[in-house]
């Protein structure tokens, strides 16, 4: 029996009168891509925001490697090994790629000082970030330029690469190709495959059925806060079922 690295059990989330998640169960496995599908307002984003610590769950549990963890802040999620690539990327335009990578968890010294008062280990951060960029085969025009000067695809690649630096267990990507052209989407998809091959559990939110068929080992469909279906190894033959589940037609 395979053991899931991330498991969500009976997740409920309410925003005032809106019941956004109504008892969702989810399992993600190392080295696999889980596609999270559903129409707008189905609860996909709410679910991943709960897992990545932006919101807290009202009911239900999150388990990492079978152990219950309390995730109330983004920092808690990250220290549990969950990295998130947000839809808006959460990049800092005024910083370089390396500065973006380490923002909020800068390498610094000396360690006996409080974190804010320490000095930046700039060379070390630059070196390690460059190594990751290289490993992921991301092409950037200039490594020391501000992110503001880079194209949509390059920015997306930087955000994915940042997750890759720190991800130890789970990487969540919220519509990573939504704003990209064909070529740039292709590069991001390759990156996702690489994250998976490095042993992470990848959770991919997307509206693009082609990407689901290409990458997903398992597809979970949400509708109006319920989990309405789950298909192992989605392919051309059961694509119709997936679409039917998403839109709610039988």
């Amino acid at each position, binding site marked *: 029996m395979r053991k899931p690295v991330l498991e969500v059990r009976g997740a409920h989330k309410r925003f005032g009168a809106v019941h956004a998640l109504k008892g969702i169960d989810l399992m993600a496995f190392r080295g696999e891509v889980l596609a999270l599908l559903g129409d707008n307002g189905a609860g996909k984003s709410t679910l991943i925001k709960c897992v990545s610590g932006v919101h807290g769950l009202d009911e239900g549990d999150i388990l990492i490697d079978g152990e219950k963890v309390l995730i109330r802040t983004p920092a808690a999620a990250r220290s549990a090994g969950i990295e998130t690539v947000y839809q808006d990327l*959460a990049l*800092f335009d*005024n*910083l370089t790629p390396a500065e973006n990578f380490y*923002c*909020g968890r800068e390498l*610094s010294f000396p360690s006996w000082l409080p974190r*804010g008062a320490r000095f930046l280990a700039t060379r070390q951060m630059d070196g390690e970030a460059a190594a990751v960029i290289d490993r992921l085969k991301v092409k950037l*025009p200039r490594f020391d330029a501000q992110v503001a000067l880079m194209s949509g*695809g390059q920015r997306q690649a930087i955000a994915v690469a940042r997750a890759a630096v720190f991800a130890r267990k789970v990487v969540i990507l919220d519509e990573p190709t939504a704003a990209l052209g064909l070529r740039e989407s292709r590069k991001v998809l390759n990156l996702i495959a690489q994250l998976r091959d490095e042993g992470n559990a990848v959770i991919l939110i997307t509206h693009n059925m082609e990407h689901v068929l290409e990458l997903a080992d398992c597809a979970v469909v949400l509708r109006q806060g319920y989990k309405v279906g789950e298909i192992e190894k989605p392919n051309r033959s059961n694509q119709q079922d997936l679409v039917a589940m998403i839109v709610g037609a039988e």
Partner: protein
Amino acid sequence: MAAEVQMEEGQVDAKFRGGSPYAPKGAEKEHAAGLSVALKFLSAGPVIILIVLLVILTFSVPNFFTPRNISNILAQIAVIAVVALGQHLVILTRGIDLSVGANLALATVLGALMFRVTDNAFVVMGTMLLAAAAVGAVNGLVYVYGRLPHPFIITLATLSIARGLALELSIGHTTMRGMPDTITAIGGGTSFAVQNSFFVVLAVAALVSVMARYMVWGRWIYAVGGQPDAARRMGIPVNQVIVSTYLISGLCCGVGAILLSGRTEAGSPLYGNLLELDTIAAVIIGGASFLGGRGHLGHALVGAVMIGVIRNALNLLNVNLYFQLIAIGVIIVMAVESDVLRNHLESRMRVKQAGTQG
């Protein structure tokens, strides 16, 4: 799968080349290089303009480039420069501190009052620094924890409160004469034929830029200014960072108060009038962005020097004071427009990057 990917990429490429609406690649690259030169010029712009200005004034204004006048300018800009450094940190986090002038005035008044009790220079200086830092802390704390939509409002309120307090505490005096010798030496004395206040500005600038450039806290200031939401999601203590910038801005007002009261050997509730405008102008003219997160502290210094030089030259030329205000205003508009232009060029650059990348 790899083969499939390859093929798809090939097809895509072929499609793009086939009905290519794009210029040939060489031209694209040249264009991008032109943009990058333009961007570099914009970022170096303030320094270039300052140098050109200095050269022109040296040749066209009599008595401009004399040791006496240079030292005069340095004395005049010291206060603006120190306070602009603090203002710059605040502007880096997308904020604004309107209270600096009133804060400085209140500090000099409290310092002068303390001088009536004791002539210990360190106690008097401590009073000024502490008072100014306290006003800065109130700005930051009320803005962040009072959940105000914009720091404009709270710093406008403390501007009014501090000015009122300063007038009230000075009990009808517009100048309160007398400062300890150490303070007059710092504010008005010279060492090696250079104003002491110049060294104070250098020291403060060095301290602040080490913090901004080499320390984690400084990186966080830039991150908060660049993208506050993202900073929060990345686990940066955004609230503390913002409060700290207002606190430091207040401290800089305290240093400015020491310099000014030292130079004039007095405290006054009327000091620092319109200092908020001068310092904001200095930061913006120097080339920092009002949109936050852009610009290094040299910008604030360059801007302060530029304002001081322009004022001084117009004085030497006997130009009407009103015209000075107009001139500074026009320069601010130009500086802000160049910021807009820079943003525009950057977005063009992004498009070009997407086009040229293979």
